Each structure stands twice: as structure tokens, then as C-alpha cells.
């Protein structure tokens, strides 16, 4: 089936099997490998991207469902070559170690601040309930989201 999906501002048209997951479309059809897959039960959030401005699990959406939509991945977060404030904050606050959960974590965090620009620690922790990190113990991720909120 033919789909056309705008990813990070560029419109892509591809012929795909209906069963292809959006995350495989991004990774394998478009070579955008920043979005990672960490589980197969839709729990870990490593694959989170923005679909029409909302954070979604790209492993729990078929590419054909996203036909005609706009997707932003971690690769599309920079503007004019500058890191997004959330990327800066994760770097500054040591909000990552192995980095595997980080793209999904950052995409969720960006969406979190869009709906709640000045969250408390508890709101940040709650807002990240769908993103698993096995390295950081979350503390520096919370600090990073808080720092990004202050930059904005």
C-alpha cells in the first residue's frame, strides 16, 4: 500500500506492507535510526515520536495508519543546526548514560513541557511513566526536564 508521510518536514512516499510498523518505516524505509525499539509489548517508550504534534509509540502504530500525517523524530528536533533546549538539558544534567532510551525520553519530555510548561518534580515523574530507563535512576532526567522548563 502506498503511504505518504511527512517526517521532520520532508514528505516521503513509499510502498509498504500494511503490517509494517511506523517505527520500522522510519528506521528501515527512511534510515532514521535514532528512534529505538526497546520492547515488544508497547511499554518502554524508547520508540516515542511525535505524530501530528502528539507523543506516540511508533511501535504501536502501523505506517498505513500514519498515512498523511506529520511525524517528528529525534533527528528532527534540532533547528538551524542548534540542539533543542531539551537535548541541551539532557546533556548538561547528565540525563543519559547508555543513551538507548534517550530519544524516546526526550520526545516525551518535549511533549510534556508543551502541555505543562512548568511542571513540578512529581508531575515530571508522572509524565515519564511510559518511558523506561535502566541506567540513570531517572533523577538526572527529572533534573534535565526541569532545567529545560527554565530555559524556555
Amino acid at each position: 500500500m502506498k503511504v505518504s508521510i511527512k517526517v521532520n518536514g520532508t514528505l516521503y512516499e513509499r510502498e509498504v506492507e500494511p503490517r509494517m510498523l511506523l517505527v520500522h518505516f522510519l528506521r528501515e524505509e527512511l534510515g532514521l535510526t535514532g528512534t529505538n525499539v526497546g520492547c515488544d509489548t508497547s511499554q518502554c517508550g524508547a520508540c516515542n515520536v511525535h505524530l501530528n504534534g502528539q507523543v506516540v509509540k511508533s511501535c504501536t502504530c502501523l505506517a498505513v495508519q500514519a498515512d498523511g500525517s506529520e511525524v517528528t523524530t529525534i533527528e528532527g528536533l534540532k533547528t538551524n543546526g542548534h540542539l533543542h533546549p531539551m537535548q541541551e538539558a539532557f546533556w548538561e544534567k547528565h540525563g543519559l548514560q547508555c543513551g538507548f532510551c534517550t530519544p524516546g525520553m526526550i520526545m516525551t519530555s518535549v511533549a510534556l513541557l508543551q502541555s505543562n510548561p512548568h511542571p513540578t518534580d512529581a508531575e515530571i515523574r508522572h509524565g515519564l511513566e511510559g518511558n523506561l530507563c535502566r541506567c540513570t535512576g531517572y533523577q538526572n532526567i527529572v533534573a534535565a526536564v526541569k532545567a529545560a522548563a527554565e530555559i524556555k
Partner: protein
Amino acid sequence: MYPSNFDYQRAASVAEAIQKGASDGAKFLAGGHSLLPALKLRLNEPESLVDIGRLDALRGISISGSSLKIGALSTHAQIASSADVKKHAPALASACGQVGDPAVRNRGTLGGNLAHADPASDPPTVVLALGGKLHLQGSGGNRVVAAEDFFLDLFTTDLHPGELITAVEIPSIGQAKSAYVKMAHPASRYAVVGVCVVLEVSGGKCSQARVAVGGATPKATLSAAAAKALVGSSLDDAALNAAANALIGDLSDVMGDVYAPEDYRRAMAGVYLKRAVRAAMG
């Protein structure tokens, strides 16, 4: 992580969806947050999927008379943040805000959730407690089914093959108090036990009550006995304990699993009933 092959059809109208959905081996696809996880694990291998995700007729949250009408494709996030839902069915807004996680709530739909009838999911319990009605449309026409008649058993509903939920009608709670509280499983966040209460209080006494429990039993269940124990009381500790005991006695077929055995779930239904009443009364 790699679903098996299926035919995919995108329905352009409700009528087309119903016609395509009636074929053998077809499944409806709305937000996909109940279906796709099973598809990825190849624990579900449907022959065809009928995508109803673009049917605008199934969207929107509106008020007609003293009822809310929530289009089946409304996402959990839309319901959780809707001012109308927060006003007329705050427990539903709260429950939808507790489904899965933010990304799940952005895609998962109320209609899909209710059709799936997972006993541990949050919305069925609340829709049941609020006296919701499901608007269904199928090849045999339209019908309206009360939530208490809709959920038949574990993952089993009154939906006929090819029949769709088009909307969910929820009577406004008006001046009544309500709350939904749950004990979330630490891994899945599904309800180990979830309790919703709707209470009418006048002159310091509870005049009417509805109590529904999810998570503990194969389907979300109303407890008349627990409600009866609350009615007429001033919702003091003694009344709450009586209601908790009534609820515990009222539950049959309580489920157990590796995490929470049957007797624990049963006891927690009582504990969470008390918490729900206290939360409702603020």
C-alpha cells in the same frame, strides 16, 4: 515485533466499516492500542483489519440534555482533558487519565477500549458505575445497550460480528460525588483492583450510591450490596467498613495471578472502595 500479514482496508464511512467488518476473520482497528500489541507478538493473526480511525462521525464530545455523548474514537487524552467530561463525569476523566501512559492515551480510544473489555482496564469500571450506555451500529441497525448488559465476561461483550460502538452516552452526575481509584500493577499499570463510586449525598447522608469494581473479576462488576451498605449512612468509618465487607462478599469469580492472588484482590476491593468514597467526598 513483526506482525503477520493481513489485508488492510480503510473505511470511508460507518456503513462501509460495518459491511467490511462483518466478514470472517476481520477486526476493527481504531487507535490500535489493544490490538497492535497482540499483533506484534503474533498472538493475534487476523485476516483483515478494517481501519475506522478516520471516521469523523465517531469523534467529538458533546452534551445533549443531561448526558454526555462521547464519540467512540475519542482518545483517552481527549477525554481526560475535556472540560465537559471533567464537569459531568469527573471519574471518567480521571480514569482515562490513568490508562497506560501519555503516549497510550494519545492514541488509545474509548470505543476500542470498551470493545476490548479488558477486565483490568480503567474505563469499563467507570462507565459501568456512571450508568453509561453504548450506542452500537451494525448490519442489523442501531441499538443502545446499557454498560451493565454490554460486558458479558472476560474480553467478551454483547457486540455482534461487524457491529461497532459509535458513541458512549454518560448521564451527568449532576450534584453527585464520584471518584475512581486503583491499585496499579507495577509493571503493566493495569488495575489490580479499580473501584469507582458515585454517591448522592443530602443532609449529610448518602441517598444513592453506585459501586463498580474492575481488575478483580473477569468483567467490571456493579455491587448492589456495597451500594446498599452506603445508602442511608453518613459515610463514616463504620459505614465504609460495612460497605467494604459487603463488596467483598458480593464478588464472585475473583481472579488471581502471579502478582496478586485471589484473596488479596478480594480484600483490596474493600480497601479501595473505602479510598474511593473518601476521595469522592474530598
